[in-house]
């Protein structure tokens, strides 16, 4: 059971990937789906035994490496923290496999797609069940690979290739810090196995490295690694571009599971993080800033998937600052509920895109809610959950996060609380903007597309409905376990709170207005979106123009029609609106300070450094030798007179030297 949950997906990936060509598309698809179902059954059983039954266990497999005290094993660590992830990942992955059967039915190479998807699931499971940092890194890079392959799945599109590469490389930047954190962990603890590290944190609490507290440094380095994978401020640029991948991929990898790996890492390392208050403060600040920053961008994007992508980024920020104030349980809870409603939103968006013949720009949608009622309904549910409207899943977790931030009574905690509240308002605003623009108002697509609008097949609707149930219920059902009265027994020591950390109790004792505030903000955001887009549809464009430096460049409709899926860059109208539309100019900035100089430097090193200087010397020496010998050849004229002359000159020189020297 424990092994099965992890390795069934690998089996499915192998069957589909290597034998897909022989057994046919149908067989390949369904074999992965069956493997995933088996894995999900194992996952849920494991959840029941480990988390509900309180019986953590570790399944050793084999030694990976053992070099001079550095021992690393392949092993599956099953405690509550990991089994929550295992159950969630296998369950959602199964639904998404199922959904993909319908979504990818017109694709040319479905076995490849399903193999990648299953491979991803396997890697993600390896990540969460890792027993040491190196195996975690294996899964970490493995999901990166799968994400790279899936973003670039349609590899004949230039934009997809670029996005895939960007995702991998930006992630690599984070990975470098992860790797260094790993090296430092080994340096300090002499081991990278979790149980050894956790048991000796206190003993090493005072260690310093390069004059810095070693534990703090480990915390910061690992968090920087987490920033890459979880798309936090600074390293977030890959996530929106990752939407080039097929929509089920966005749902599974870039919303529900992989991007939460960073949050998982911080929670997994809670025993270390608890001794690193500065690192936690950094986590809080970065998380809160990301939550706000991504939400502001989400308000002006026009691609349905990008809006949701920025919302993912923002929600990950929430999770981070929850962990940053010490409420890891709450962060995990939000991770858990978020997985359901965000997967739902993406799959719903996929259903819309499917219905609209692959249109993704919400400026070309509208007026379709009667034609795809089920999709419309589940999108409502997803957005209600996302906005934190009472009794939907997000309400429980987001409220708890903001309460925890408030209850931490620290400067950074308050910073997080304020930005979190603002982001809650923006979240509700952009969610309803999306909902209204997509489904309501006058149809803005061309006639041909509108005639083809159709509800998705059953194989896509079933996962949607199941996820919708999750988005409604997970908050209510699991809140007592994750963050309520049973939390201590539930987590069973897999998350560590230091003695001085009473955040989980304190968060229930905040003033009465605090739990109410997010809901008010959410409703306010919805109301604003309603006013702007439903009641006065002309207003947003005028606002956009007011806040642009070049108002004439504000696009109400995309420049390039559907065929131009390749080229989705919009003109930059400048001003505040342009600042948001161009995503705070992060891409431009990085291009300017990293990409361009690297390219220029590469050419300089090659053409000047290698070709002219390093090769210049031996080649120059060779030329010199050739020329010298040519000169010598010229002396050999063969005329006796010349030789005689040379001899006389030589004699004179020698004699004079002799005379002078004496």
């Amino acid at each position: 059971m424990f092994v099965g949950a992890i390795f069934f997906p690998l089996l499915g990936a192998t069957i589909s990937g290597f034998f897909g060509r022989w057994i046919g598309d149908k067989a390949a698809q369904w074999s992965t789906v069956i493997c995933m179902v088996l894995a999900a059954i194992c996952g849920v059983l494991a959840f029941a035994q480990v988390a509900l039954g309180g019986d953590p266990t570790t399944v050793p497999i084999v030694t990976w490496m053992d070099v001079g005290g550095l021992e690393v094993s392949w092993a599956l660590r099953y405690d509550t923290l990991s089994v929550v992830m295992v159950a969630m990942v296998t369950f959602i992955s199964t639904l998404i496999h199922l959904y993909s059967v319908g979504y990818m039915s017109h694709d040319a190479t479905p076995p490849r797609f399903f193999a990648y998807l299953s491979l991803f699931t396997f890697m993600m499971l390896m990540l969460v069940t890792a027993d040491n940092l190196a195996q975690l890194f294996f899964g970490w890079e493995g999901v990166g690979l799968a994400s790279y392959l899936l973003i670039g799945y349609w590899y004949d599109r230039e934009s997809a290739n670029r996005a895939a590469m960007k995702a991998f490389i930006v992630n690599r930047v984070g990975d470098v810090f992860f790797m260094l954190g790993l090296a430092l962990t080994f340096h300090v603890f002499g081991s990278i196995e979790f149980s050894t590290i956790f048991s000796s944190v206190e003993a090493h609490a005072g260690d310093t490295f390069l004059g810095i507290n070693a534990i703090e440094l480990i915390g910061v380095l690992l968090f920087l690694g987490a920033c890459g994978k979880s798309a936090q401020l600074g390293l977030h640029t890959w996530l929106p571009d990752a939407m080039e991948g097929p929509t089920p991929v966005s749902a599974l990898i870039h919303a529900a599971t992989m991007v939460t790996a960073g949050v998982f890492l911080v929670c997994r390392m809670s025993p270390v993080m608890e001794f690193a208050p500065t690192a936690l403060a950094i986590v809080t600040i970065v998380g809160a800033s990301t939550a706000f920053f991504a939400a502001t961008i989400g308000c002006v994007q026009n691609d349905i998937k990008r809006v949701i992508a920025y919302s993912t980024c923002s929600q990950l920020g929430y999770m981070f600052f929850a962990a940053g104030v010490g409420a890891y349980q709450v962060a995990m809870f939000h991770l858990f509920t978020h997985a359901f409603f965000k997967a739902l939103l993406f799959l719903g968006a996929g259903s819309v895109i499917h219905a609209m013949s692959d249109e993704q720009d919400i400026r070309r949608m509208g007026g379709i809610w009667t034609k795809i009622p089920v999709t419309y309904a589940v999108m409502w549910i997803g957005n209600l959950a996302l906005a934190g409207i009472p009794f939907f899943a997000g309400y429980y977790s987001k409220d708890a996060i903001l309460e925890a931030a408030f209850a931490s009574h620290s400067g950074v905690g308050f910073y997080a609380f304020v930005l979190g509240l603002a982001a809650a308002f923006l979240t509700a605003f952009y969610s309803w903007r999306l909902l209204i623009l997509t489904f309501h108002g006058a149809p803005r697509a061309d006639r041909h597309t509108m005639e083809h609008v159709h509800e998705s097949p059953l194989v896509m609707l079933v996962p949607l409905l199941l996820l919708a149930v999750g988005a409604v219920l997970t908050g209510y059902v699991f809140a007592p376990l994750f963050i309520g009265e049973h939390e201590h027994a539930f987590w069973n020591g897999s998350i560590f709170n230091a003695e001085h950390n009473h955040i989980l109790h304190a968060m229930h004792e905040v003033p009465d207005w605090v739990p109410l505030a997010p809901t008010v903000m959410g409703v306010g955001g919805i109301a604003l979106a309603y006013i702007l887009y439903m009641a006065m549809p002309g207003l947003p464009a005028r606002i956009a123009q007011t806040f642009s430096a070049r108002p004439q460049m504000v696009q109400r409709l995309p420049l390039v029609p559907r065929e131009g899926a390749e080229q989705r860059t919009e003109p930059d109208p400048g001003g505040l609106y342009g600042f948001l539309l161009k995503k705070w100019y992060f891409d431009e900035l990085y291009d300017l300070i990293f990409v361009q100089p690297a390219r220029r430097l590469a050419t300089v090193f090659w053409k000047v450094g290698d070709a002219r200087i390093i090769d210049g010397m031996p080649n120059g020496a060779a030329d010199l030798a050739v020329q010298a010998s040519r000169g010598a050849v010229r002396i050999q004229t063969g005329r006796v007179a010349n030789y005689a002359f040379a001899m006389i000159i030589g004699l004179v020189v020698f004699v004079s030297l002799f005379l002078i020297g004496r």
Partner: protein
Amino acid sequence: MNAAGFPLLSLITFLPLAGAAIIMSVRGDEAVVARNARWTALWTSLIVFLLSLILWARFDQSSAAFQFVEKVSWLPEFGVGYHMGVDGISVLFVLLSTALTPICILASWEAIETRVREYMVAFLILETMMVGMFAALDFIVFYVFFEAVLIPMFLIIGVWGGARRVYAAFKFFLYTLLGSVLMLLAILYLWYNAGTTDIPQLFEYQVPRAAQTWIFFAFLASFAVKVPMWPVHTWLPDAHVEAPTAGSVILAGVLLKMGAYGFLRFTLPLLPEASAAFAPLIFVLSVVAVVYTSLVALAQEDMKKLIAYSSVAHMGIVTIGIFTFNQQGLAGALFTMLAHGVVSGALFLCVGVLYDRVHSREIQRYGGVAAIMPSYGLVFLFFTMASVGLPGLANFVGEFLVIVGAWRVNPWVAFGAALGMILGAAYMLYLYRRVSFGKVTREDLRALLDLRPREYAVFAPLILLTLWMGVYPQSFLSFFEASVANLVARHEAALGAARLAGIQ
């Protein structure tokens, strides 16, 4: 050590020469000779490989001593003998050489059409020299093999190479020879002072501190060119570009390891103080190599050149690992050497597959290959990812250990090595994207055929090896664990003694 008293190492070393002799003796028309040469070379190299597997099976992993030792006195009055043996450091390189040779011969099956007989002879001689070099336990014998490797390689590049083959061959030869001359002087000094060239005996001899510096730089001149370290690396891209595919494979797979092997075998044990004193220099050169050549690789337009530059970057990781003087670093360096031998060899074979079909190495010439040749696309991707250092594949283990080891010495060096992770991903993925992904823009590419059975046979062992090394590296690490531990212990003891002497 050598239970049966059977000269196994000599047999492995010189059997290829016998094969070469058979090939030479065949007469007849060209086609017959060519076919005969191919099959004889393949069988010879396979038998050698099987024999070398005995080394794998019978090697005592718990011992750091030299095993399978053979000793015959040769010039007794000068203290020079024919002395062969392997320890944990060298045994796997013998295996790497014997494993790559049949693969190379198979890879040149159809690619080489002219002078097949001479080509195969050159390859078998090359194998003898490589194996001999790794197994030699006498400095003179080592030097002979070390230099003799150049000759078949020079011919392989110069005769069967590409358009600028003569320039590349001479550059390769002169660069490497120039360094070796200085090493010869150092060897003469050692022989003059220690009275022997026997390597285990030399280990007992303490080189005076003042002389260590000079010898260190003499060795450095020779080994740094072979590694190659920045800034003496420019012969490598030229040699790779012009060499035939199999030549590149051997060059990257085995010949580049000779320099690093020299550091491990001679510089570290013989010159502990100088090594420690100049480690910062090596670190600087290595980090520069990693960053500089990775950037240069990014700008390349020729597939082979790109992979050649990536080799320099990877070897930078190796030299960092060697000069950390701790177990993780050294084991990581050794592992990276092995992994790089397999992976970059395989990458050159990948380029070769395309070159055989299209006769162009220019990246611009390709695009969308994955759609036309799906199996090939997968294989190429596999090795691209291995080269990037994806955990679970071969290169990661070495890189990881080197970074962990380097961190213990100097975190900034570790950071420099880790920068290679980003840049490595950048240039390899950029290469893969331009070659395999994208739309098929050139119509003639559409007719390309996917991998043939012979090519599957070439890649299959390499794929298995890469996975094996990545998932269960312990079966390789355990080979050199004892030897590395011994090396580290001796190094620390020597430094400790020197420090004591300094205090008194």
